[in-house]
């Protein structure tokens, strides 16, 4: 599987950042779904079942960690990446418990960002090989 064949759910409440990253993703992935907060993200996740979830952490209504927790309850092997500045250790403890695949550091380095996405694609391949991918494909 390559990044071009992947669908991505991107959850971000900051409109400027959202537009910027959405444009990058649209040019590199098969489908991009965008949500404005965790609650909307979770609903969209259930509807679209994307291959990869990318999310900010601090958001209104439901934050990125709460959303990830709900998604992991539905699909434990779901590949999720969280944007972080690594400033809060309480977040990391929770994220480690949830077995979050990848962290994407702020400020964004575009090359590292793509490498992290490619890493997640490889993770999906491993899940498929093990038969633990959420769609069993």
């Amino acid at each position, binding site marked *: 599987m390559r990044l071009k064949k992947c669908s991505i759910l991107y959850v971000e409440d900051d409109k400027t950042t959202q537009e910027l990253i959405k444009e990058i993703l649209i040019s590199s992935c098969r489908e991009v779904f965008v949500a404005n907060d965790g609650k909307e993200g979770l609903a969209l996740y259930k509807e679209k079942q994307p291959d990869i979830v990318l999310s900010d952490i601090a958001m209104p209504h439901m934050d990125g960690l709460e959303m990830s927790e709900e998604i992991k309850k539905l699909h434990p092997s779901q590949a999720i990446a969280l944007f972080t*500045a*690594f400033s809060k*250790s309480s977040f*990391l*403890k929770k*994220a*480690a418990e949830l077995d979050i695949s990848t*962290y994407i*550091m702020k400020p964004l380095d575009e090359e*590292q960002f793509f*490498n*992290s996405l*490619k*890493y997640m694609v*490889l*993770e999906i*391949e*491993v899940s498929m*090989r093990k038969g633990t991918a959420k769609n069993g494909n």
Partner: protein
Amino acid sequence: METNLKNISNLINNQNNLEDEKKFKIASASLVCAIVDIAQIDHKKYCPLFKEKLNLEQNEFEQIRNEISNDALNIEDKVNYIKSALENNMFQIMEFLKILNKFAIANGCTAKSYREFELIRDKFLREFY
């Protein structure tokens, strides 16, 4: 299934060779030390993790730590050694990277140490990206 060295080493052809296993453990621990600031390592958190994930006793880790302190660490060499021991198999390499990721965030994490993890990860996976 929880990822640990045992799962990986079972996949390595020369799994019964203790010398090779030791060399593999040393190379792995060296990479952990490159990611996490070795002077800042919290022993209470890391020793159980070293034991669980890399089958590495505290005295073995201390020995490696001292060796690294006395010698410049060649990350490229360690990465190449591990890749070769894992037969450059993408699936085994991914399992190994999951272990490294656990170490990277086990003690809280700084942007610097996560960046180091990313650089090492990308050295492992460059040809698979």
